[in-house]
């Protein structure tokens, strides 16, 4: 049972699944630790690797699920392109090693700060191939930007955490790299004022591509960060325009050093504030205007991304964050915790009866033997 199953082709994977009789724990290489507490034999997609198609002129890339994100990003960089949804790297937060795979990114619908401007991973996912629990190879979507042919199983597979099928290939929309980047920094805002500032910026015509706030930045003081990207002249213009728009909320500086701005947003993206620390880490998806109240109710340390629509919270081990939050539009996911805490509190927020029944119905059909990441999503 300790051997990792690592099929090297889609056909071999289909054979493994068709003949499996006991639970499988699906991973890329496990950098997110999502399935680490589950029972079952580990089945890794890392044996299926390689970019199968890259057309810079059509902004499309197709890769086998086990391809490392690093390999894809290096290939894209050669043509001055990028994965615009800016996937988070979980290794620092989770204390894991290995090279994150694109299949893992898609299975967990991992997105970064640019989510507010360009959408999530699922919005950049054009097509998938996967093996379902009956051992059937299924494709859905394709490699074109617009596709409404049949049901959108592409979206369904993104963020299904391996519970409906094992991804073998994904097709992604990529975008050109930007010429310049600037960050507007405002010091000393309360969480409520920071959310107000971020809302005003995101509701402006200046195409803000990142809006984050930390109540205790590197020097211990609150910092609000707003990012604009694009052609150099346009970036300079929009950064100044934002500065003017937000002048009454506080003084701001414009930082446009490429290395510093990149490091700053990696800090936000990878939730570096909670690296190497003790305690559980939660991720709360909410309406931005609810974020100040939720941060207050949560207690503990918080980091706001997506203009307040995403709240990262660090709490003492075993604390039930969900019980602390009064009613809101959204949900909380337990990202970093011991296996014991995950068992007790559940990784994903329980849903109402009808949604639970729908999700269970889908899992029953796509995974009739109930072998994929059993117990992870309900």
């Amino acid at each position, binding site marked *: 049972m300790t051997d990792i199953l690592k099929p090297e082709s889609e056909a071999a994977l289909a054979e493994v699944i068709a003949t499996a009789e006991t639970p499988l724990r699906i991973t890329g290489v496990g950098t997110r630790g999502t399935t680490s507490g589950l029972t079952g034999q580990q089945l890794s997609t890392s044996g299926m690797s390689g970019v199968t198609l890259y057309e810079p*002129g059509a902004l499309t890339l197709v890769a086998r699920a086990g391809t490392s994100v690093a390999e894809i990003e290096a290939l894209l960089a050669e043509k001055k392109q990028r994965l615009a949804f800016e996937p988070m790297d979980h290794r620092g937060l989770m204390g894991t090693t290995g090279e994150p795979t694109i299949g893992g990114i898609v299975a967990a619908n991992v997105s970064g700060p640019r989510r507010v401007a360009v959408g999530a991973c*699922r919005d950049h996912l054009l097509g998938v191939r996967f093996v379902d629990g009956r051992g*059937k190879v*299924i494709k859905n979507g*394709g*490699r074109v930007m617009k596709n409404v042919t049949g049901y959108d199983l592409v979206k369904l597979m993104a963020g299904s955490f391996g519970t409906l099928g094992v991804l073998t290939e994904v097709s992604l929309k990529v975008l*050109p*790299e930007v010429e310049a980047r600037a960050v507007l920094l405002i010091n000393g805002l309360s969480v409520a004022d920071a959310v107000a500032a971020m809302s005003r910026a995101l509701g402006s015509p200046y195409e803000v591509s990142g809006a984050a706030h930390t109540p205790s930045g590197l020097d211990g003081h609150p910092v609000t960060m707003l990012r604009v990207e694009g052609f150099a002249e346009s970036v300079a213009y929009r950064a100044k325009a934002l500065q003017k728009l937000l002048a009454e909320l506080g003084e701001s500086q414009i930082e446009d050093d490429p290395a510093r701005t990149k490091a700053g947003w990696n800090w936000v993206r990878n939730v570096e504030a909670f690296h190497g620390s003790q305690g559980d880490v939660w991720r709360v998806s909410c309406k931005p205007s609810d974020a100040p109240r939720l941060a207050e109710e949560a207690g503990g340390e918080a980091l706001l991304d997506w203009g307040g629509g995403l709240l990262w919270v660090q709490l003492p081990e075993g604390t039930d964050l969900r019980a602390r939050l009064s009613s809101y539009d959204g*949900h909380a996911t337990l990202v970093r915790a011991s296996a014991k805490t995950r068992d007790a509190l559940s990784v994903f927020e329980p849903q109402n009866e009808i949604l639970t029944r729908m999700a269970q119905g889908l899992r029953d059909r796509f995974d009739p033997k109930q072998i994929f990441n059993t117990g992870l999503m309900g």
Partner: protein
Amino acid sequence: MQMPQPNQDVLGRKSRIVALLAEALPEGAVIHDENETRAYECDALTAYKCPPMCVALPTCTEEVAAVLRICSENNVPVVPRGAGTSLAGGALPTADCVILGVARMNEVLETDYDNRFIRVQTGRTNLSVSGAVEENGFFYAPDPSSQLACAIAGNIAMNSGGAHCLKYGVTTNNLLGVKLVTMEGEIVEIGGAHMDAAGLDLLGLICGSEGQLGVVTEATLRILHKPEGARPVLIGFDSNEVAGACVSDIIQAGILPVAIEFMDRPCIRAVEKFAKAGYPDCEALLIVEVEGSDAEIDHQLGLIKDIASAHNPVEFRESGSAEESAAIWLGRKSAFGAMGQINDYMCLDGTIPVSELPLVLGRIRELSQGYGLEVANVFHAGDGNMHPLILFNANKDGDLEKCEALGADILRLCVEVGGCLTGEHGVGVEKRDLMTSQYTADDLEAQLLVKDVFDPKWLLNAAKVFPLEVTQSRRSA
């Protein structure tokens, strides 16, 4: 095109079903007179018509739930309908169905500028969603050509796109939440004002499911602040290949135009005759629109001009005023009307990888000559979403069939080069029988399994999307 045999048992119970619906709905909300139901006999795919058994026009979610509960309990097929503007026959009735129309549900329920969303009843038209937030400088991005008439319900069912999707995405990228009524009449919220729905992405699954998984009565939509300004350029080329290469270069240069529209010579000529937009008589024409402040627009148009110049355009016309911008868009916007003036036409919607544009345009020309039917091309080039318009004469015996056969060949070509049958119109009945050219039996079965979960009795719009023989056993179970 075949439709299933109407269920005689259901038709025999018509008066009872009508009475049950009338009891559950306000006065005047049930239409069953044969002269009046005819108003619902088709959508914008007018080649096919079939009056429904009756029509229910509820005014709120609870009434929608009541209608669906009655139909579910009595095994009556239901065809949901937004504004009836589907080009794919998505709202085409069957003779034994209840048309469930949401047209009377068009209220704005909530606008929230701080959190950038609007919540509406789904009978509201696309353009009037933008209209509701316009005075505060906001808009709703997806803009199908039918936006004046089409309803959000249909936009969600078909995952509609539009000319500006290149930058802003299609419906699914701008949809935050829905209130869904299941075929059994249960009401459930999926997603909401927050950015990521919890659990499996059921929201993404519902969007584009062509009204087969449930009826969406309310939608939470992302709204954006309008750009400071926008300006188009018109670029003419003497070959499709060169125009295609120019599109690819613009995209790769890091410019993100809001729209790149492409018209070929047959289309340009028809449009010019009809709208007199002053277009050059050339082989291919691009309209590229960029957004931002004046200085930003100047900069982007400067880059586009450099790129285009390398391809020796026969014309590069930059707009210098609002009137000139309107003139540039005039021809494109009247393209469909212009075609309608000269002929009957069928509008296709296949999508291809942008790199295959020259090849596909060449092959379409050959096919068009082979069939002896003219094809004009007007489409969203930036994302490869083609709209070949096949011209035919509906009054000429066999012409419609010939046109459909040519259409099918063109769509199979789109699939063959790595594209798909439909980019933004949906499958409906129109492309139903071509699904096997894009998907294997296993691929289709996976989709049918999804419908089994949401509509186990296969009552909801069941004759659409999938070939009838593929769904036969489920529909008759």
